[in-house]
């Protein structure tokens, strides 16, 4: 069984193990483990959604869109403003619109507007370089800089005060196997899985999705086959950025404090997840997101038992995981190795 097989099966095995252990003694330990698993699943959903965005763009342009984590941040802020507006905070709409309606409106609008930002960045910053045939290095630098501009632009315009995201979902709690999960957390997990399934369908069964795959194999042949390359690329950014926007909204629902730098760390972890899973393959991004989350939760949990491990070390662990994977198998778990021909 290869690395991919193991990676896919590990989280499921873990959960199965928990289910089977239901009947064993040591209920407290079980509850803790279950709780940790749920935390990991929820955090992993966010990472996975963002990682999918990195993956789509890399697959199509061979570009690591370093600004993507900050698109996630933009998504959270966009969601905040839409929700606040819908709840009557700015006097543009009457107050008293029911929360479920606000949520129902916020989700598609956030995704749409955030994808707009992503597409705009592609149009203004990346496309001119691509058309000039510029060295990919320049595009990567541009992406890195774009991210910083988003962060500090936000900081300059909105100030350093953190914003508080309104609560849009009812307070419902489920208690599987003694652990607690709120409906907000559960919806993050369910949404992520649903989105992944949808994405799989788009990429493998629709014309546009297959065009995306074609571009990832041979960018130059694609226009020769009558496929509009620019349109495919715009669609990729549209898709990836709307997923990041959705992730921003889901994150804000669960961790309702927004600050301009929230995208930096989360974006980074998601990026590590995409690379570890195998950037270029959406299954890799999906699995990678959960792997990263499980790793982080494991570190935090271990800090209770092992003296020298501290919870703050989880960032360190994430980056070290990145270095290890890049040294051993740079193409990631699901990636295919490439050879150079001379």
């Amino acid at each position, binding site marked *: 069984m290869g690395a991919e097989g193991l990676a896919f099966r590990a989280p499921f095995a873990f959960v199965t193990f928990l289910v089977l252990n239901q009947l064993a003694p040591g209920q407290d330990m079980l509850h803790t483990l279950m709780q940790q698993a749920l935390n990991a699943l929820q955090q992993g959903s966010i990472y996975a959604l963002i990682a999918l965005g990195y993956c789509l763009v890399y697959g199509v342009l061979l*570009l690591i869109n370093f600004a993507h984590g900050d698109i996630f941040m933009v998504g959270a802020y966009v969601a905040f403003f839409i929700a606040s507006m819908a709840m009557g905070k700015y006097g543009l709409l009457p107050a008293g619109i029911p929360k479920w309606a606000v949520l129902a409106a916020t989700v598609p609008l956030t995704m749409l507007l955030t994808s707009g930002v992503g597409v705009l960045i592609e149009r203004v910053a990346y496309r001119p370089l691509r058309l000039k045939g510029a060295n990919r290095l320049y595009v990567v*630098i*541009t992406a*890195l800089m*774009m991210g910083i501009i988003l962060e*500090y632009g936000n900081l300059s315009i909105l100030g350093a005060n953190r914003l508080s995201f309104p609560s849009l979902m009812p307070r419902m709690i489920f208690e599987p196997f003694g652990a607690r999960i709120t409906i907000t957390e559960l919806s993050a997990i369910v949404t992520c899985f649903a989105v992944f399934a949808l994405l799989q369908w788009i990429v493998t069964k629709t014309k546009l999705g297959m065009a995306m795959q074609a571009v990832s194999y041979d960018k130059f042949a694609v226009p020769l086959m009558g496929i509009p390359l620019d349109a495919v690329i715009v669609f990729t950014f549209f898709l990836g950025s709307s997923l990041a926007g959705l992730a921003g909204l889901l994150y804000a629902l669960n961790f309702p404090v927004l600050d301009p730098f929230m995208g930096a760390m989360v974006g*980074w972890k998601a990026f590590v997840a995409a690379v570890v899973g195998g950037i270029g393959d959406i299954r890799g991004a999906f699995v990678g997101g959960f792997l990263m989350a499980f790793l982080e939760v494991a570190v935090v949990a271990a800090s209770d038992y092992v003296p020298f491990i501290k919870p703050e070390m989880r960032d360190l662990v994430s980056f070290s995981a990145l270095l290890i994977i*890049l040294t051993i198998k740079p193409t990631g778990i699901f990636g295919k190795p490439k050879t150079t021909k001379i």
Partner: protein
Amino acid sequence: MGTRITVPAALCALLAILVAMTQKDILGQYGVTFLCSMGIYVILSASLNLVNGYMGEFSCGHAGFMAVGAYASSIAGVFLFVPDKVFGHPWLPMSMSIVAFPFILAIGFAAAALAGLVVAIPSFKTRGDYLAVITLAAGYIVKSAIENIEAVGGPRGFMGMSKVVQGMDTIAELPWMLIWIFLSVTFTIWILRRFVYSTYGKGIMAIHQDEIAAEIMSVNTNKMKLIAFMLSSGLAGLAGGLYAYLISFVNPSSFTILRSTECLVMVYLGGMGSLTGSVLSAVAFTIMLEFLKPLEQLKWVVIPLVLILLMQFRPEGIMGNRELSDVFPKLKRFYRFK
């Protein structure tokens, strides 16, 4: 006569003038600090240019090496000269501070060079984007690791270096940091120029222009990459050590992606593969930072924007890969730039 004497003489004269200006209060504290920052930026720019410019790699973690050097030099200095909670009683009397300072800087250089070794090894097999990611991660890891080490103050930072500088003042009242930085800048440029323009160093450019041809034409590419990374990061560590003693305080938040971004801007502004360019751009950049000070946070929208515009319209930077003697051939009479 000619080339061998003119430049060293000119440099000595320049240093003497600067010192005299500080003694006579023509150059005030602000001016001295400005020049010192400029010097540190020159070292950062030139050292990163070795890897990103001449070798054409994409190292985005220069701040990490600066941090390693900064902390190593700080710890060495405090350990040797200053009573400290963690490091105990000083080992040497203050009277030795001037003599010992080059060694303190050398320790920073060495520590950072060793850190560069760690990044160089993955570079043997990966290039481009992947190396960018590795170096970015390395930068974060260094910062994150320092934040977790309580002995050096963690996120709150580390102090004590001011006492070492004061110790130097007790021996002779001179602008010591200005002197040390001036000497370090001279050292950096001297070492880089000699390396890069020897046939040995040109192997690095060969790797950039065609790595496979280089390997097959007998260049030991792994060894050259190792040397380039270690030299580059070592010099960044030197800059870090100088920075630590200049502001008498180090903490991890001085060595973030923003610092690395500054270094990247300087390299691409000056021109990949131009030593003159990296010096000029460091000077220009320091001046630009002064003008941007009132903007505060908006500064960090302007600087990345500058880099983006550079990428779009003049990716070869100010000098491309030319040196001063290419633009002003008459200067060749006074100094061999290449």
